[in-house]
């Protein structure tokens, strides 16, 4: 369906994918109206610094925004902020707004992102218990980031560990609780988990694995203690919850758009309704380099799908689909991840773990499918290309540091 002569394109959601869709639509020559409906009070901004430099107070708020307000005016983009979309009527082609009224569309992009999974224990609603998802969360957390305060972080995923690193650097006493037997269990290999666990312990974080939180207790409505299933009690002035996210699919689902752990899209970010697209954390897409569908939670994915949707609406050739990638900053460690490591059958370490400069490659039937690179950009950048080329590499070649990644990559493809 050709939608390039649309009068109005509506974007629901105001995050990374929405901002990209706005920019790409204009870049691809769309001259009609664009309406962005965003529940948050802020214009679209970057989330990664929320658990990194911004949390630490090292980045001014204005530097979080993708574009200044004047840009939206210049580009004639109507931003409806602090506004929740409550219903999509696909036959009338309208989106209902929380406080009444509706906006009609010729094409619709759903970029509603995801929300933190709620902590399913008693006391989760006490004062001092926070999620870490948006700017408003950080505004609440930051005044309490005071040296000497006791912080308990529930969940040792990337966001939890990044927050732990920032809090330690600010002098807080930090405990991380993880239910699994190792940190980052859902997303990386045992070698990497062991490395990060050792780093955090060395920095003074009390990392407790196989630790199940059973409740939070407080006095006068304020959190004071985290109680574990084994009865252990930990003093807590503040609790950060980082136990994963849930895609915001309800709006789409209620309108009859096909969803299955994410809004289902084709390669052009189009849903089963040809006028409706989905992009970012809320969408499940074809992972072209892996031959399966999946939902990714990353900046790269949000940008790419925002572009794909805009290109499809404007009838432009499909933009290149890059190998998925992600990064995480903890202390002076830069982790760069290329590819998706699920279902690997072999790992290869290259470099020196003790020197904190190494990479773990993930292979499946000899084929490179992912890398976790610590302070090692060449391993990261070379792997992106190798993964896209579908290269198979022998473990002894990948681990041979007498050859540069450039040489290895040149020989492999």
């Amino acid at each position, binding site marked *: 369906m050709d939608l390039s002569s649309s009068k109005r394109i509506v974007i629901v959601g105001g995050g990374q994918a929405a901002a990209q869709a706005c920019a790409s639509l204009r870049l691809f020559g769309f001259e009609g109206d664009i309406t962005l409906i965003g529940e948050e009070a802020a214009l679209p901004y970057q989330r990664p610094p929320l658990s990194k430099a911004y949390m630490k107070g090292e980045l001014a708020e204005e530097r979080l925004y993708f574009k200044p307000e004047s840009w939206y005016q210049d580009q004639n983009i109507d931003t409806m902020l602090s506004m929740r979309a409550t219903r999509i009527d696909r036959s009338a082609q309208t989106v209902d707004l929380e406080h009444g009224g509706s906006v009609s569309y010729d094409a619709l992009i759903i970029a509603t992102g995801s929300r933190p999974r709620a902590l399913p224990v008693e006391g989760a609603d006490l004062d001092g218990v926070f999620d870490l998802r948006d700017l408003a969360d950080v505004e609440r957390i930051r005044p309490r980031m005071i040296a000497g305060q006791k912080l308990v972080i529930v969940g040792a995923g990337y966001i939890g560990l990044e927050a732990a690193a920032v809090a330690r650097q600010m002098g807080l006493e930090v405990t991380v609780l993880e239910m699994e037997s190792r940190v980052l269990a859902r997303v990386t290999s045992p070698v990497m988990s062991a490395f990060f666990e050792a780093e955090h312990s060395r920095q003074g974080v009390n990392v407790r694995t196989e630790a199940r939180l059973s409740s939070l207790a407080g006095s006068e409505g304020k959190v004071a203690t985290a109680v574990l299933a084994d009865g252990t009690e930990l003093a807590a002035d503040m609790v950060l919850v980082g136990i994963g996210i849930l895609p915001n699919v309800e709006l789409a689902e209620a309108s009859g758009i096909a969803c299955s752990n994410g809004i289902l899209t084709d390669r052009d970010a189009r849903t089963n309704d040809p006028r409706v697209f989905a992009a970012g954390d809320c969408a499940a897409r074809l992972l072209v380099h892996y031959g399966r569908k999946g939902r990714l939670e990353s900046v790269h994915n949000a940008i790419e799908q925002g572009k794909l949707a805009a290109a499809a609406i404007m009838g432009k050739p499909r933009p290149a689909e890059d190998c998925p990638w992600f990064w995480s900053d903890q202390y002076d460690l*830069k982790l760069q991840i290329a590819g998706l490591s699920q279902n690997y059958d072999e790992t290869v370490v290259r470099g020196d773990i003790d020197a904190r400069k190494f990479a773990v490659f993930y292979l499946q039937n000899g084929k490179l499918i992912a890398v976790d690179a610590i302070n090692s950009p060449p391993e990261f950048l070379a792997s992106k290309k190798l993964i896209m080329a579908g290269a198979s590499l022998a473990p002894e070649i990948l681990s041979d540091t007498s050859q540069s990644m450039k040489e290895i990559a040149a020989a492999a493809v």
Partner: protein
Amino acid sequence: MAKIIYVDHEGTERAIEATNGESVMEAAIKNSIPGIDADCGGACACATCHVYVDDAFMDKVGKPEDMEQSMLDFAENVQGNSRLSCQISVSDDLDGMKVTTPESQH
């Protein structure tokens, strides 16, 4: 404030007034300068903000740090005057600097 001139790979120039303290990448993104993607938002994680710095300003922009250098070692079409624009901070000294963007950031 400093005037920064972005030259695309076809030679088209776009001049903007950049604010001290922001990066050459941020100034470009705010002003919708084409040719700089900056996918990671300045985290030195993506190498999609690659530019070629005017030779006359090579001393003034300083040397890349280790992380940036090793990203550059692996970026496409790198030259002696290649830099990641998110790692160059704008100051009065850079007034009049030209940076050229590569044909593609990927």
